[in-house]
């Protein structure tokens, strides 16, 4: 069967193709399709239940190896980490490896590549000479991978980079064996050379042309972990130098000839429509070129962003709020409570018989928890630059889903997908915000939609930029959620029946599930619709459910008169990975050892994205009741660590991101509009709030897990649990800043005993 025939076979799970470069190098492409994690993002990016990924490796005549990573780097170090995985399997000399994001201008890792081969024009310079027709077909199957769900390393790395690197090594070794007339089994690849015991040696580059003539192996053999020389090391990130001298180019930094700038004036109340506005005085302002109507508002286009923004703010405009002004947090929470009370619910987990379990319990406990909406507040305000001309569209943006963005721009512009060129740029933060996904364009249009609509009306490239106020008030928010527990315990206080009803199920599926050994469980959810746009937020549904479950289990521990660590330990005795993480965090944090007066520790644990994280927070309360987190100890079992420094960095990052939500994070709705607007009223953790962070990894050898998100959801419960120990106040609704935690002298004294 030829490669093309194999490609036509829909059951085929992995594809390898290779071709020579005109300059004498080798280009190897590896594609894999596999079952998708249940996310909206993945469903949008590929067929239902399946996601695809492509990896490209190039060997150049100067013996450098370029690894093209089909992911966005929004600070998580993924481009370096994935290149490390390929280089390790390939036996490349790391000093000769160039990790790169799949090139922007040529839409490298997607089907445009195939089109380029078909018609022979606009072939990316580095691909000239690659004529294997298989690329055409292969590339039609490819899409740029969504960066989300902490999936880069565990999906693309595990299923793409490693086999691609191993395949390249296999071909290089066979090329050397053929050239030297020796068995391949006698040749060794190391540090970008292939050698033979006879003393023969060749660089990868010298073998590349011969290797390109060989068939790639169908099942590349991976190295034993004990032989690793690159993976697991604290390799410096390739993207950092440009981020300390101002040369890094983010979406907001792109400039094209004749570029104009657009600012929006959006109705504060969601779902509003524009009634009228007075364009004349605005068009008379210096630099203003045009006013463009967009759904729910207008855009002002000018020759300088500040002029556009000032003009948009000065516009006299009237909106019709269409009845949506009735929405408030009180109305929303009343709906939540009514939905939970009615219990018209959908199954999440049903195990045993919770009704009988509750009836037979020694006692039961009821509690209701809530979290508010959260904005992402990426440091780079949302922006998108679009140029529509001659039936073609160019779009420049930092996106977590380059292909989805391209598809969306095609749809909104009415220009054929093939004539839309996406130029992915660096993201100044992502956290789930930069996935161009809404549940319907006119319900929740995004900045990408707006930029495209504006560009249709302007004969120039236009950069739409949100102000911070636009960004905070027109995000796709982490949803507000209510969760209600009724739990029965035995005579020792251990849970025997776990009934949980919550509003709105979000990804991932298992976020609300508990790891604890409770015989009877009924976890169900109700649907609750809201006009507030909703989107994934770092660790998605784990953010809310970890706070709920890990706080409530802490309540049960205290009610039982047990140490919260020992209580969890007892309940996790049949979960060895959880138990190891829990026991290690207790040991590393010095759980149970004396603390300075007025301080207490709180503990929490959660498995998310196949990684288990436990955190212990050491907390005190200021005289004004302000929560001060002194130290966080985190223990992480992600199966395997690829880059020990960036892995640590992601855990630090996740904790601080989650700490902002725990202490301050709150988007509230009044009159159908977001009440907060900028950092003064949507507060962020700053230098003075940051605890000492002590991170430890357990390399359990379990299936590799994600790292971008799993540290985030655990911290809120760890801190709130410590607050309870100090103050006796159980916080059942975030953020902590809303609670009067002013310490009482007697409580401080007892906490310190």
């Amino acid at each position: 069967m030829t490669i093309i025939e194999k490609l036509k076979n829909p059951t085929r799970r992995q594809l390898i193709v290779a071709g020579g470069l005109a300059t004498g190098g080798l280009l190897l492409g590896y594609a894999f399709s596999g079952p998708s994690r249940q996310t909206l993002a993945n469903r949008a990016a590929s067929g239902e239940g399946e996601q695809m990924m492509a990896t490209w490796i190039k060997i150049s005549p100067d013996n450098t190896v370029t690894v093209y990573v089909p992911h966005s780097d929004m600070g998580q170090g993924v481009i370096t980490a994935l290149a490390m995985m390929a280089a390790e399997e390939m036996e490349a000399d790391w000093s000769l490896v160039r990790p790169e994001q799949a090139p922007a201008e040529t839409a490298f890792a997607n089907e445009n590549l195939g089109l380029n081969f078909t018609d022979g024009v606009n072939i990316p310079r580095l691909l000239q000479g690659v004529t294997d027709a298989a690329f055409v077909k292969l590339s039609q199957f490819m899409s740029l991978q969504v960066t989300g769900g902490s999936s880069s390393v565990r999906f693309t790395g595990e299923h793409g980079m490693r086999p691609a690197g191993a395949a390249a090594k296999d071909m290089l070794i066979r090329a050397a064996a053929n050239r030297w007339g020796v068995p391949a089994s006698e040749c060794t690849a190391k540090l970008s050379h292939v050698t033979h015991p006879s003393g023969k040696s060749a660089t990868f580059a010298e073998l590349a042309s011969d290797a390109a003539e060989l068939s790639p192996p169908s099942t590349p053999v991976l190295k034993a972990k004990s032989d690793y020389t690159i993976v697991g090391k604290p390799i410096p990130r390739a993207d950092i130098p440009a981020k300390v001298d101002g040369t890094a180019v983010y979406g907001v930094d792109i400039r094209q000839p004749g570029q104009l700038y657009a600012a929006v004036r959006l109705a504060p109340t969601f779902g509003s429509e524009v009634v009228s506005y007075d364009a004349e005085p605005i068009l008379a302002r210096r630099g203003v070129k045009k006013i463009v109507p967009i759904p729910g508002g207008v855009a002002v286009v000018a020759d300088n962003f500040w002029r556009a923004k000032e003009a948009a703010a000065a516009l006299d405009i009237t909106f019709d709020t269409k009845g949506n002004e009735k929405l408030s947090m009180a109305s929303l929470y009343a709906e939540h409570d009514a939905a939970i009370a009615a219990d018209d619910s959908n199954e999440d987990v049903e195990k045993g018989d919770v009704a009988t379990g509750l009836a037979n319990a020694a006692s039961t406990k009821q509690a209701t928890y809530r979290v508010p909406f959260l904005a992402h507040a990426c440091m780079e305000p949302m922006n998108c630059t679009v140029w529509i001309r001659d039936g073609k569209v160019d779009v420049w943006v930092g996106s977590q889903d380059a292909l989805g963005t391209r598809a969306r721009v095609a749809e909104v512009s009415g220009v054929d997908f093939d004539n839309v060129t996406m130029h992915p740029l660096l993201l100044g933060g992502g956290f789930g915000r930069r996935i161009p996904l809404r549940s319907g364009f006119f319900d929740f249009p995004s900045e990408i939609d707006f930029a495209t609509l504006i560009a249709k009306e302007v004969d120039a490239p236009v950069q739409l930029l949100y102000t911070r106020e636009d960004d905070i008030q027109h995000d796709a928010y982490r949803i507000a959620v209510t969760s209600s527990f009724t739990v029965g315990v035995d005579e020792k206080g251990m849970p025997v029946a776990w009934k949980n009803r919550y509003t709105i199920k979000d990804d991932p599926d298992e976020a609300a599930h508990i790891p604890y050994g409770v015989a009877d469980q009924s976890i169900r959810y109700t649907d609750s619709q809201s006009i507030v746009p909703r989107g994934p937020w770092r660790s998605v549904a784990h953010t809310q459910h970890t706070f709920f479950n890990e706080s409530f289990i802490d309540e049960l521990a205290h009610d039982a008169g047990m140490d919260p660590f020992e209580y969890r330990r007892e309940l996790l005795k049949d979960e060895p990975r959880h138990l190891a993480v829990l026991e290690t965090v207790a040991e590393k944090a010095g759980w149970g050892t004396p603390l300075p007066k007025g301080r207490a520790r709180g503990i929490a644990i959660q498995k998310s994205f196949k990684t288990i994280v436990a955190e212990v927070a050491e907390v005190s309360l200021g005289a004004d009741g302000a929560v001060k987190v002194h130290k966080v100890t985190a223990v992480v079992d992600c199966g395997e660590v690829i880059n020990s420094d960036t892995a640590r960095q992601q855990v630090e990052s996740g904790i601080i991101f989650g700490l902002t939500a725990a202490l301050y994070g709150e988007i509230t709705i009044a009159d159908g509009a977001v009440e907060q607007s900028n950092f003064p009223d949507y507060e962020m953790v700053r230098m003075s709030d940051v605890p000492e962070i002590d991170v430890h990894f357990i390399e359990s050898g379990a299936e590799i897990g994600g790292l971008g998100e799993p540290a985030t959801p655990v911290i809120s419960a760890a801190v709130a649990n410590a607050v309870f120990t100090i103050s006796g106040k159980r916080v059942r609704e975030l953020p902590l800043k809303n609670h009067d935690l002013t310490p009482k002298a007697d409580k401080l004294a007892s906490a310190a005993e």
Partner: protein
Amino acid sequence: MSVSFTVNGVSHTLDVEGEMPLLWALRNELGLNGTKFGCGVAACGACTVHVNGEAMRSCSTPVSSVDGAAITTIEGLAAAHGAAEKLAPIQAAWIEHQVPQCGYCQSGMLMAVSALLSENPNPSDAEIDETITNVCRCGTYPRIRAAIHSLSNA
């Protein structure tokens, strides 16, 4: 109005509204994009530059107020520490400690910290907390602190 100032040693004269913030003069009039827009209300520090050696939040600094001033942006930070150096010591420390993640806030962080260090070469943690109030959403703060101390102790 006509406003003149130097940016990284180069003289510029602009005919712009006096109330235009320096940030937008730098980014949209002069094409110096290293200085970032974060909040527009001097709350996050992403736009921090040096005006006559002092850290200023350029999003809330009208150009009329910097007429005749010497401005340094991230693009000129290395040269300001000696033309022969490719990187200022603080930039080298940022690489050594692998500080940036997304990197968007780091121009402002570097400008704020370099101003602090030129005034106070050995700041305490409390002084760092009080002076460096810039926002970083990726949470690079612990590494920023470590990088500052590595420079202080050098």
